């Protein structure tokens, strides 16, 4: 494959550094414990902050009084919402395709007048040590007027439901409703006549599923260290997926000009979408402004789970599908009710599209609702909404293939989207490798091997997954050091081995070994604006920015080399760190010689930005074998194989790592991870003992099968990688359970109790 994504031919240069399964360049500091995460940083005079959180899910804050806390020896500052400028609803900052509403960000960081979930912050203290800060929290007096709790979607949608937000009127309904509602928006994606087509279908299948709110489960709790200097300049060391987004958010919340604020992203102990928005960064800065000492704020795990961070949305989803006598899909009908938590979320459009994208179908009617309840405001989690909708859609497709008596793989082959077929929003599909994936599965042992006999029923499930991903913008620059080596500064935070793969890109572009390239993630003052590391965009767009920056730097070097060698730039050939004359054999100069000779003539800075790169849509298909203990409902995953089209694997080991980790996260949500709220909106399982991430004993080794269908018009043809491998997981497991037992489980996670209830025909 060449760098424009054309299949490799004899003339195209072979890749030397890219495409190789190289270890991460930052692995050694991880295995020795030297890698620095914000919690590891100490500053002289540093104090510790803690947040006071609401014990109620829905209440008016009548009064907050910090007098007693302020008087406690050792307390150096307290803050409440009164310490922040009030931001009107709809104060937007730019971020990606939709922007961010700062009114909501402010609510997530410090509630004003009203609380909408248990754990929402209402005050904070900074003290000389955590024990004093803890004691001070108990001395902050708060008076609440309790309001009725809306604990779940069922209550939220009831006609007489208590309304969370008086300013929310359902968007997307005509005429505009006259009363406020917990339903924030209605989104429709439709073509043809799905209802009619379902009526006329030879076979139909329908499922209704309920998915619990779940958590990204990053192992590093939210943490920030903030310091304000004598000039009022604030530095924030953060665990964030986006230093620029954090900077915009903190700046807006504090009305601080960005010339007075710098965000330094340190190592991040996992984010998966949950560390895009800020959760306390502005609070720490405000405390630091007040006490003029460095302030460290570290969340406990309980805070992370009990309202201190944004989990992933739960949902109620109904799907009906129909096919004709040839086993061709004729209709898909879907209703998606998404639980956004305590503040309005996003339109479910992307997840609705994702659910239907991989099937060619003439009649489509998808209706989605974004709904608020008294739970923490949800945030992104790896292909947000993808696994929830695929849990419903892939079960419906599997059930339909059963009704038709067609093998589930064959059914997918008959109906699979191909390059050029119509996407749910009406535009044609760019190049996709779904057909290749399905062929590949048919030939793979994971599909052909017979299921070995077990003590209990076993089954094999298949499910597809699609994620659109996004591109947004990335910036990077390359300076050339005095010894001729490229030094990369990029705006991308490294959440997935980005430094390694991006150093590989530049090594490839310069024809140098990987070890000759230096790379760093910039703080918010040292590179151009880049959107957060999210939406499977970073590797693709930063590759594009670095290909551009490399070309820019090499062009500047070429001009300089031509001057030194007294020839025309066009007469020079560049290869592996050396410019050579095409005309005079033996006339050449290495980058090291060139820079030594010309360093004082000025810096070489190659610049690159990428925006509006063509999408690198992600497609995967998973095959899963399970055994179901029909006495206890426990599901054991015996074997799991994930097929994915990645365009080009910049680093196959990193790609496998993304896929394997993603699948295991999916298995967690599929089987054991779900938030359990009581009727008062309090999370009953706010610990990692009862919120059960899979351990090494709960999952098999995941096999990742990489398929490469390059994206045209994208350097190296790279696709997004990190999001789609979570999408099919719950569907694949559910289909395997159904094949094993003849029973469909409609609740996710499919805990043993729920599986047993389904097997017994209860609940």
């Amino acid at each position, binding site marked *: 494959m060449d760098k424009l994504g054309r299949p490799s031919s004899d003339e195209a240069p072979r890749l030397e550094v890219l495409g190789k*399964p190289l*270890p*991460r360049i*930052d*692995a*050694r*500091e*991880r*295995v*020795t*414990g*030297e*890698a*620095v*995460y914000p*919690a*590891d940083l*100490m500053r002289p005079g540093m104090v510790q902050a803690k947040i006071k959180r609401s014990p109620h899910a829905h209440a008016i804050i009548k009064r907050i009084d910090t007098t007693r806390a302020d008087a406690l020896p050792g307390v150096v500052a307290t803050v409440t919402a009164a310490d922040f400028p009030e931001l009107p609803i709809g104060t937007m900052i730019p971020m990606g395709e939709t922007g961010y509403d700062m009114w909501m960000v402010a609510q997530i960081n410090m509630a004003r007048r009203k609380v909408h979930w248990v754990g929402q912050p209402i005050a904070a203290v900074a003290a000389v*040590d955590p*024990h004093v800060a803890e004691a001070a929290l108990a001395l902050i007096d708060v008076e609440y007027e309790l309001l009725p709790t809306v604990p779940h979607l069922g209550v939220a949608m009831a006609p007489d439901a208590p309304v969370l937000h008086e300013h929310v009127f359902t968007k997307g309904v005509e005429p505009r409703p006259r009363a406020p509602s917990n339903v924030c928006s209605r989104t429709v994606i439709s073509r043809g006549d799905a209802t009619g087509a379902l009526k006329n279908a030879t076979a139909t299948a329908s499922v209704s599923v309920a998915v619990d709110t779940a958590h*990204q*489960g*990053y*192992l*590093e*709790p939210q943490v920030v260290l903030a310091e304000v200097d004598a000039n009022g300049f604030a530095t924030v060391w953060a665990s964030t997926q986006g230093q620029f987004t954090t900077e915009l958010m903190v700046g807006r919340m504090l009305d601080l000009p960005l010339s007075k604020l710098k965000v330094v992203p340190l*190592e*991040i*102990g*996992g984010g*998966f979408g949950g560390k895009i928005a800020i959760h306390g960064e502005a609070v720490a800065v405000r405390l630091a402004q007040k006490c003029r000492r460095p302030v460290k704020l*570290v969340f*406990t*795990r309980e805070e992370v789970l009990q309202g201190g961070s944004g989990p992933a949305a739960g949902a109620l989803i109904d799907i009906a599908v129909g096919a004709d006598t040839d086993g061709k899909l004729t209709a898909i009908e879907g209703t998606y009710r998404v639980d956004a938590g305590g503040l309005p979320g996003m339109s479910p459009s992307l997840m609705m599209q994702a659910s239907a994208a991989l099937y060619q179908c003439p009649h489509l009617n998808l209706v989605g609702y974004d709904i608020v309840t008294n739970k923490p405001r949800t945030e992104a989690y790896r292909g947000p909404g993808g696994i929830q909708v695929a849990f419903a859609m892939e079960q419906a497709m599997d059930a339909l293939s059963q009704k038709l008596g067609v093998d589930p793989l064959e059914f997918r082959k008959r109906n699979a989207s191909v390059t050029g077929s119509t996407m749910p929003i009406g535009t044609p599909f760019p190049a996709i490798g779904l057909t290749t994936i399905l062929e590949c599965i048919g030939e793979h042992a994971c599909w052909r091997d017979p299921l070995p006999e077990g003590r209990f029923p076993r089954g094999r499930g298949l499910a597809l997954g699609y994620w659109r991903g996004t591109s947004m913008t990335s910036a990077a620059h390359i300076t050339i050091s005095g010894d001729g080596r490229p030094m990369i500064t990029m705006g991308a935070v490294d*959440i*997935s*081995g980005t430094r390694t793969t991006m150093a590989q890109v530049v090594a490839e572009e310069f024809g140098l070994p990987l070890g000759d390239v230096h790379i760093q993630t910039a703080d918010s003052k040292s590179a151009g604006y880049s959107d957060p590391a999210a939406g499977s965009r970073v590797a693709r767009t930063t590759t594009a920015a670095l290909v551009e920056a490399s070309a820019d730097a090499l062009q500047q070097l070429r001009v300089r080399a031509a001057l030194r060698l007294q020839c025309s730039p066009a007469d020079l050939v560049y290869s592996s760190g050396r410019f050579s004359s095409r005309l005079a054999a033996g006339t050449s100069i290495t980058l090291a010689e060139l820079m030594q000779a010309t360093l004082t003539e000025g810096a070489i800075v190659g610049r690159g930005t990428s925006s509006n790169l063509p999408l690198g849509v992600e497609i995967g298909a998973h095959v899963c074998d399970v055994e179901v203990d029909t006495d206890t409902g426990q599901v054991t995953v015996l074997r799991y194989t994930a097929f994915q089209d990645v365009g080009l694997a910049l680093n196959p*080991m*990193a790609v*496998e*790592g993304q896929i*394997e*980790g*993603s*699948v*295991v*996260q999916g298995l967690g949500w599929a089987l054991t991870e779900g938030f359990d709220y009581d009727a008062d909106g309090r999370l009953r399982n706010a*610990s*990692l*003992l009862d919120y059960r*991430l899979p*351990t*090494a*004993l709960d*999952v098999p*080794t*995941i096999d990742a099968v990489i398929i490469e269908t390059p994206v045209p018009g994208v350097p190296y043809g790279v696709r997004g990688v990190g999001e789609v491998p979570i999408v099919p997981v719950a569907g694949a497991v559910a289909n395997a359970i159904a094949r094993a037992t003849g029973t469909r489980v409609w609740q996710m996670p499919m805990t043993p109790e729920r599986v047993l209830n389904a097997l017994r025909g209860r609940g």
Partner: protein
Amino acid sequence: MRMMITCTVNGEERTVLADTRDTLLGFLRERLGFTGTKEGCGNGNCGTCTVLMDGAAVNACLVLAQEASESEIVTIEGIADGDKLHPIQEALVAHGGTQCGFCTPGIVISAKALLDSNPDPSEAEIRHAVAGNLCRCTGYGKIVEAIAAAAAQRR
């Protein structure tokens, strides 16, 4: 209350002023600066705080600093021999067994405790040995592979 605590960390005897309520984890991180040991939960549920205490892997968040007085502690900072990584560390690097890295110090310690007592573990034994160490990034496959490779290399 404040008090002096003496213990041996990575072979060096240390005497430091601490709060009576400090956990061994807080003591190592905040008072001694051994920040390689992480806090993912503070409740014994995640294993990111795993250290060796008198040779046994323990959750430093469930131990009081005072309980460690007169004990020998080994943290992640004490595993490599200067620039020479321990075979478990080498293997985690080579096999892609570390991603965000937050679980990694704990995994290294648990794996060391395993290989010190069982030089030839099966896959099931390896998985059992790290079952108290959650990892959210890798899906465990490459970690298990790395520990098996380290065991093979040490034999």
